[in-house]
């Protein structure tokens, strides 16, 4: 029994006139501690998959099992890192994380423990220097670090990331990817990350799920990335396994499932 499994997940959206099948027969098993990316062209429904696992959307067929329990609503055991960080602008960096900590561990931890836990998670993402700042006072990369800290602080069974670095410039993105790898090594989280960046997927993932184009999108192929960890960006650029994996993903995306609009 896999830690997280998606069984025949399908999603239909009803519009006033027609039914639109977004996803069909998505089957996926994820082991504890695994880092999995989902890649595909825009509009292929990869965010829909993530939102179904997150419980923000309810699939119209099939189901999701996490640690033996069915998922049917959102919850802190499936914390989400949103693409645009979604920090509350009227709360400081500290309070944004603390809000989640108080809510999730309000009973289990004392006030002091919750304070320490908040700081601990902010230091995991190297944001302990700016805890009193408001979101508008820090850069985009820092906001996303705080978003990650907030999600980690919930101690989720699976961490869901929806194109977490999509809105960042290349250098900042590289820094955050390194931080994320470091955290994944330390904590051993189970992660599902949506991305459209091939290098990001290969660098970070244990497996890459490649999705076909919609409508009725489904999993086209799953690629294992057998690179040993810890992985170092610079050493990998010449690595034949890395180049091979990268080539596989690019071939899938641009040869076999070329996007209609991209032609």
């Amino acid at each position, binding site marked *: 029994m896999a830690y997280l499994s998606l069984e025949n997940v399908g999603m239909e959206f009803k519009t006033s006139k027609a039914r639109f099948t977004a996803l069909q027969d998505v089957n996926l098993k994820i082991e504890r501690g695994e880092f999995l990316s989902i890649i595909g062209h825009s509009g292929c429904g990869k965010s829909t998959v993530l939102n179904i696992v*997150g*419980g*923000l959307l309810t699939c119209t067929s099939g189901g999701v099992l996490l640690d033996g329990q069915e998922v049917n*609503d*959102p*919850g*802190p055991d*499936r*914390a*989400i890192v*949103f693409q*645009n960080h*979604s920090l*509350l*602008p*009227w709360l400081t960096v500290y309070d944004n994380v603390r*809000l*989640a900590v108080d*809510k*999730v561990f309000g009973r289990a931890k004392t006030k002091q423990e919750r304070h320490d836990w908040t700081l601990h998670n902010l230091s995991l993402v190297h944001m302990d220097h700016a805890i009193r700042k*408001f979101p*508008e006072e820090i850069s985009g990369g820092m906001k996303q670090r705080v978003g990650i800290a907030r999600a980690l602080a*919930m101690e989720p069974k699976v961490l869901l990331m929806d194109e977490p670095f999509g809105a960042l410039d290349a250098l900042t993105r590289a820094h955050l990817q390194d931080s994320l790898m470091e955290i994944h090594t330390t904590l051993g989280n189970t992660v599902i990350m949506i991305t459209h960046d091939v290098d990001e997927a290969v660098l970070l993932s244990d497996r890459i799920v490649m999705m076909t184009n919609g409508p009725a999108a489904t999993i086209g192929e799953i690629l294992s990335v057998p690179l040993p960890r810890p992985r170092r960006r610079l050493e990998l650029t010449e690595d034949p396994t890395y180049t091979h994996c990268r080539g596989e993903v690019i071939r899938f995306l641009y040869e076999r499932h070329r996007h209609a609009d991209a032609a």
Partner: protein
Amino acid sequence: MTVTANTEDRPAGTAAVPAIGRLLSGFVATLPERGRALAHTTVPPLVALALLVGVWQFLCTLPGAALPPPTKVVADTWELIANPFFDHGGTDKGLFWHLAASLQRVAVGFALAAVGGVLLGVLIGQSSLAYRGLDPIFQVLRTVPPLAWLPISLAAFRNADPSAIFVIFITAVWPIILNTAVGIRQIPQDYRNVARVIRLSGPEYFFKIMLPATVPYMFTGLRIGIGLSWLAIIAAEMLIGGVGIGFFIWDAWNSSLMSEIILALVYVGVVGFILDRLIGLIAARVSGPRGRA
């Protein structure tokens, strides 16, 4: 616009003396700068005011002018200006008491409108069924002029004071409802998703997400509402009588005391301006620059 406190550390004891000297010389050095900034904001309105009063003086001293020039207004009403606190019983009171009576009515009516408006705004902002049901009615009712409500409220309350307060309420409540509702409908889906993931309960969502996210919109409504209240109370008081600045104007008109009317108008304008700024100030303190853009 948070006010940052002066956090300069002052060394204790004798060491303070040179420090104060430094501070002073620093202050003196910035004086021309400060003076220029002050002049920048105060000189243009003062010049414009002087011009306006000059034109008024010129026009109203022409032969056949129906209204008194400013010099005559001040001369005629010097008693009222110099002594706003007298009270000879009845409606023969100083302007302060008239303004206070009007402000009191506005305070009660506006407070009711603020509470009712925010609650109704939350209702139609949150529930699309309530929105579809109530919004058309609100859109029609809000176009009814404040004074048109007065006869109905007089008939219902059979008393001048509650009627005036009701007119304030019904005037101020619409912009508060509609702006609050817009604010709530504009809460980004992201914030709702965050609330769902961490499983905020209904009341927690209300206080931790909805209220802070809507405050700037609410205050836009409150600010429009207070302006309308002040407009309405003057008109309502003209009709219902009693103590109040509106009645004072009407009474002066009946006694053909043009100068008193003009003086009262100046006071009404200044008070209205202060009310508006007051709400603006509270809004800035509450939401600050952290409010949602």
